[in-house]
Structures are given as C-alpha cells and as structure tokens.
C-alpha cells in the first residue's frame, strides 16, 4: 500500500483526511483508486482525456511524476505520493 498525502484544498473531497492509503502498482492505478473511493476527486485530479490535470503536481516521494513515467510510473510498497496544487494565500 502506498501513502497519498492530500493537500488542504482536496481534503473536503476525501472526508477531511490528510493521508490515504491505496493499492496499485502505478501512480495512475493508485490515483484512480482514490478517485473511485472518493468520486469528488475525479475531476480535480484527472482531465477529461484521463491524464493528470496540469494544475495538479504529483510527486513520487520527492520527484515529479511528469519527469518519471507520468501515470505509468511504478510505485512500490512504502512509497509516498504527494499531491500538490498551487496555493496563493499570503495575507
């Protein structure tokens, strides 16, 4: 099982959880299993073509999956996926 860190803006869509665990052998499988369990996240994570939305960055441990194999990047037991949308609050 991999751990998925959920950013503040997505927490309302996952019942307020900060971290989820999901099974799957690739980034795509894991994120799709998150979206299956929490349907509100589907449109936040995935574009209509099934790829990742461009405004959402996903990191496998500390590396952007876009510089790895994207959604096909393989994920091992104990890996952590970090979902990072842009934030702009400064006040």
């Amino acid at each position: 099982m991999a751990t998925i860190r959920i950013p503040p803006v997505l927490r309302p869509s996952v019942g307020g959880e900060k971290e989820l665990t999901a099974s799957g052998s690739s980034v795509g499988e894991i994120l799709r299993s998150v979206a299956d369990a929490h349907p509100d996240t589907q449109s936040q994570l995935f574009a209509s073509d099934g790829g990742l939305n461009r405004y959402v960055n996903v990191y496998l441990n500390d590396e952007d999956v876009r510089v790895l194999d994207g959604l096909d990047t393989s994920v091992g037991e104990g890996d952590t996926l970090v979902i990072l949308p842009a934030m702009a609050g400064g006040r």
Partner: protein
Amino acid sequence: MSPSGAEVLRQIKTRIDEIDPAAVREQVGNGAVIVDVREPEEWGAGHIPGAVHVPKSYLESRIEGAVPDRSGDVVLYCASGNRSAWAARTLIEDLGYEHVESMTGGFTLWKDRGYEVETPRTLTAEQRERYSRHLLLPEVGLDGQQKLLDARVLLLGAGGLGSPAALYLAAAGVGTLGIVDNDEVDLSNLQRQVIHSSERIGVSKVDSAEQTINALNPDVNVEKYPVRLGADNIVEIISGYDVIVDGLDNFPTRYLLNDASVRLGIPVVSAAILGFEGQLSVFKPYDGPCYRCLFPVPPPAELAPSCGANGVLGVLPGTMGLLQATEVIKLILGEGEPLIGRLLMYDALSARVTEVKVRRDPDCPICSREPESIADEELGVFPDYEAFCAGAH
C-alpha cells in the same frame, strides 16, 4: 641624562632605511608588503591601496600574522614618517626582519602627491554594536553586513508573510526595503500581521510598516508603493531590486510577478499559506525553475481558495515569512544552499516538513526564452483567469 625622544628618533632614522613615497608607489604590487602602523581611525579614513594594517601599539604581537616572511621586503608608513621609523627599528632590531624601510613623509605626503587612496567602508560604532552578532559569524562578518546594508529587497505585501519578513530583514540591516501594498490596517489583520498595531487601524499598511521599521532600525530606508501591482506598473516598481519577497494573495499577480522577474533576472522568494500549511520556494531566473515551470496553469476557482477569504493560523505566516527572510539573506550573502529547484511544504499541525524537487521545464513559455524576448503584453497573461476567479466570489 637620557636623550630626548626627538634625539632618539633622529638616531633611529640614521640606522634604518627610509624610502620616498614615489618609490613605495612603484613597490605596490611588486612583492613588498606595505604596512600601515597608524591607529584604526586613521586607517579607516583612508590608506594606501593594498596595504595591511598593523597598529604600532600591536606591532610586536601582530606583525608575524600579517608578514610571516622575515626576509621579504617590508615598507612601513604612518602619518608623517616618525611612528613608522620607531616601528622599523622594532622590526629590525627586536624581531629580526631583514629588509624594512620607513616611508618618509608618511601618508600625509602620499596624499599630497595625489597618489591613490583607498577608503575602506566601515561601520559606525553604533552599527558595530547593533550587528555585532552578525559580525561574529564568519559567513556574515563585515563584508556580509555591508552586502546587507547595500541590498535592496522588495516586499510584495505588508500582510501575513510580509510583516515578519520585513521586521527581520530590517533588523538584519537590509539597507533598502520596498513595500508594495495598497491596503489599510484592519483589526482582523492583527492576529498575524505583526508589523502593524492596534493604534494604526485605518492607517495605510505601507505607512504603518515604515513606522515600525524606522523605530526598529534607522539604517533601513523604506520605499513605499501604496498601489496594486499590475501589468502597467510592475516593471517600473521591481526594477533595481536585488530580491523580491512574494507574499501575494492571488494567482494572476503571482504569474505576472514571475514573468516580469524572469525578464529582469530578479530572484523571487515565494511563499503561500493556507490553514495550517505553507509552501516555500526560491525562483532564481535561469539558475532554476520559475513559477510557471512549477505550476504551468493556475487551478480552477474551486481549487483556488485564494480567491476568497480563508482561515489561517496566525503564527503560520510568521513561520513561513521568516523562512522567506532567511532565504533572502542567504541570497544576499551568497551563503548556504538556497531553496532553488526545491519546494518545501510545512504542515504546522503535524509539525512535518516535506520537500520535493522542482525541475526547469524546457518548454516553459517564459523561462525557456531569452529575457529580452518576453514582451510587455505577455506579462502575466492568462486566459480569462481574472474573470474565473471573480466568478467564485
């Protein structure tokens, strides 16, 4: 009866070698060590370029550190040629230096001849005291403190992030702090915007921040911009600053800032906060990724809570703003490893810091290009984003 001091000096001058300033000038850079034996205040007012400073009162204890080679050529000078004669005798007769000369007429004659003078930049006695804990750090020291005093840092916003950053940058002696903010102090700001105060409610934030900074450190010159940053004024405002502290509260201006700062080559120390969590990164144009490399497009309104008012733990912008101030100081000093190409996430509730890598995007619409090719009308451009964000209210 013992001879008078003047008589002894006359005798000494017959035993040592003296050298004219013209000959000393030729020696500069030719291997001879030029030693200024005057008092620190005299040295501070100007000295021969390339000279080393060993006050006569510390000659015996410090000369070996400054001039370890006793067989090399050494030229001593003072103000008029007398103290240096005494010092030359000490070096030759007591300490075994073999080739020592005393410059006739001293620094006074050197200056009268119109020869080059180097005036070291020094701190005032008050500054030496104020910054004494910096001066004790080898990574800062006198040179670093001068860099800080010479630095120009622009704070975008005197709000949650800008308040603590401004306070500590001012305390550190950053010589010029520009502040862009068109807001007035509001009671609900004071839970976190610590540069303001209860009696300044209704006062413009730039004026309020200036008052606090002036009271904290008179060395700091505050430049105020009580305006909203926009495509029409950003290039004019940010030009000439060394580092920008981004505490902006909306995406359109962050992209605008990114594009303008890449074009002008100004590093941006960027932070964002929400609830109990913060993000921090340093965008140094062409040394690392830019904001568009990290976030090529802004999120839609429902995922961009910056569009509306949201809660934030008051201390969180303090933490993040001080991390920004720390990165600013590192950039000015050229010390340490700045947070370039890395993004730090801080979760206050779990007390956890996570770091991820940020890569330069070879196809970045802004920083993959030459800075001159970025046109005014391209700065901060996003399709319908303002309208999108406005629709979320």
